[in-house]
């Protein structure tokens, strides 16, 4: 069951440096066809090294979830290249994608997505079920993951018997339990109050310090800045990339310091006359 057997990680020539965990180039994603086509991602490049804590920050509708789906192998790009842990996953079929999700990605969703009829520990076991881990080992690993997020005493509670913050911690335990290459969180604090949000974000920081790769997707600068690197997106392209001190320079929660990189301004018509047109 070791990763390297059926999913060889690319090694550098000298054998020391592993390939980036995520390597995306010229990525495009278009929804629909013809007149109704919407280009959600338009030529995006992104490299994430192992052990990085990255947040992708962008206003609503600029393609964050689309990117997250592609990084998480829930969807495939229209064009461009995506290598996950050294392997090209841009053109795999549903079955292969399912196996890769199971082994390499730990998802944390805004809506928690716990199964209502299962206890906390059974929810955490789910990815291990699909990984073919036997029930005994599964239970042990799920209990250990719950213990790590401080829910040892809530093992047998149903999601409805847990607070939102606790539910999200169960979801985090579920993301952790397979020991994934990347933890991928899309607006994980979107449904939480500020205290719970802080706690959840604290866990991501913890995982990062433990050497894990975390990709956090959000539209909130306050959330984004807990990461060690912030990537700003707008209209499907990267418009800023750097440590939070640089991206949010001097202005609290505004984007003043994160000006878009040099872009040809001629394209945008200064007079409001063209607003009605496409």
């Amino acid at each position, binding site marked *: 069951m070791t990763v390297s057997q059926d999913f060889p990680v690319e090694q550098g020539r000298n054998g020391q440096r592993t390939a980036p965990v995520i390597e995306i180039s010229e990525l495009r994603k278009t929804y629909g066809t013809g007149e109704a086509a919407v280009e959600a991602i338009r030529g995006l490049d992104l490299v994430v090294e192992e052990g990085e804590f990255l947040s992708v920050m962008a206003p609503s509708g600029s393609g964050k979830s689309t990117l997250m789906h592609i990084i998480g192998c*829930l969807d495939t790009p229209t064009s461009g290249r995506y290598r996950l842990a050294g392997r090209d996953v841009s053109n795999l079929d549903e079955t292969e994608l*399912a196996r890769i*999700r199971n082994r390499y990605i730990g998802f944390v969703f805004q809506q928690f997505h716990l199964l209502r009829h299962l206890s906390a520990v059974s929810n955490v076991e*789910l*990815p291990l079920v*699909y*990984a073919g881990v036997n029930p005994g080992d599964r239970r042990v690993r799920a209990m250990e993951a719950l213990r790590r997020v401080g829910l040892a005493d809530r093992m047998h509670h149903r999601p409805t018997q847990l607070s939102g913050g606790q539910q999200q911690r169960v979801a985090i335990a579920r993301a952790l339990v397979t020991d994934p290459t990347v933890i991928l969180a899309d607006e994980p604090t979107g449904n939480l109050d500020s205290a719970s949000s802080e706690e959840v974000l604290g866990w991501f920081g913890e995982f990062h310090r433990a050497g894990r790769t975390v990709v956090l997707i959000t539209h909130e600068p306050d959330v984004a800045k807990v990461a060690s690197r912030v990537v700003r997106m707008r209209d499907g392209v990267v418009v800023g990339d750097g440590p939070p001190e640089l991206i949010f320079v001097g202005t609290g929660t505004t984007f003043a310091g994160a000006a878009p990189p040099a872009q040809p301004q001629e394209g945008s018509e200064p007079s409001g006359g063209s607003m009605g047109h496409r």
Partner: protein
Amino acid sequence: MMSLRETLRASIEAIATHRSRSLLTVLGILIGIAAVIITVGLGEGSQAKVTAAVSSLGSNLLVVSPGSSTGTGGVRGGLGSASTLTLADATALASHLDAPDISAVAPVVQKNEAMSAGGNTWSAPVIGTTPPYLGIRSRQISFGSFITSADVTSANEVAILGTEVSAELFPGQNPVGQTININGSSFSVIGLLASAGSSATTNQDDQVIVPITTAQSLLVGGRNRTSVDQILLQAKSQNSVSAAYQEANALLLQAHQITTPSAADFTITPETQLLTTATSVSKTLTFLLTGIAAVSLLVGGIGVMNIMLVSVTERIAEIGLRKALGATPRAILRQFLTEALLLGLAGGILGVVLGVGASLIVPKLTSNPVALSVPAIIGAVVVAAGIGLTFGVYPASRAARLAPIDALRGD
């Protein structure tokens, strides 16, 4: 890869989570299977009843009755008027030379008589006949003996009782060796018939059998003393029934000096004809009832498909999540197929319980027997599981094909 046990567990969890919906889903199959078991049971039960009734009358049997069935008034003659059949006819038919395909002949006279023994009185058909009657009618003697040729020759006043007559006249006693009074004459009871139950038309346990000669002289007074009501013929085998029929017909036409067969004053009815008609009627009935049950199963299967489609729609978020966590399309397909199979199986088992229960109650409310056969029950459960599986294929493949992002969005 998810093991079969895991798939089963997930399916049982899902079914248990949606208990009332699961029950609704299986209702159609449940009713269908119960209907199959009851209707097939009723059909087989009535067929068995008809077969038993007919075969209890005797095997390879031909019945010669006086009168013509081709005449204008239907069957002429019969009780009350002088019969056209005589003991001499019976003797002629018993000739192995002239009628080699007839193996046994028993002339019969029959009359309802009042009878008494001790302080008890009763009324029952008294049958006068000869020793071959016992074999022809497939009857058994449980105590004592049957009438002998000597009894017939000397017109002995001996009687064999059916179990019901015995119970009425000698309650709680063995009647053999006792005396009964029939129509003013004393008969000594020499035997007791084993119970044969009721045939379609007559209660075969409510009978008294005496030598035909005794019956003719003591009981059927006023009528021609040599006439008989019926002559029972047994053909040598199933295959020789029609030969026996021809021989009997020719012999009787000759004996009665009738030259045109259409003017015959007797009728020969092969028993097999009765049997075939009766079984074909009940076969048709079984077939019809089974057809109805099959249609209800089909409707039940479509019910499973409908409710499973609803279930897939309702569980889109769950399916999406399972896929995101690594469930392959095949794993989802297997899970939903297993659910459909288990639902079918549950419907089948509940249907069997209901059907068997009803099969035990129905005979108590109506006089129809219900035959329960284990292979039919196992078959019904297998069919139910098969229906669940078949009608689960479409919803399951819909679930398997759901794109994970569409599925995750839907909540």
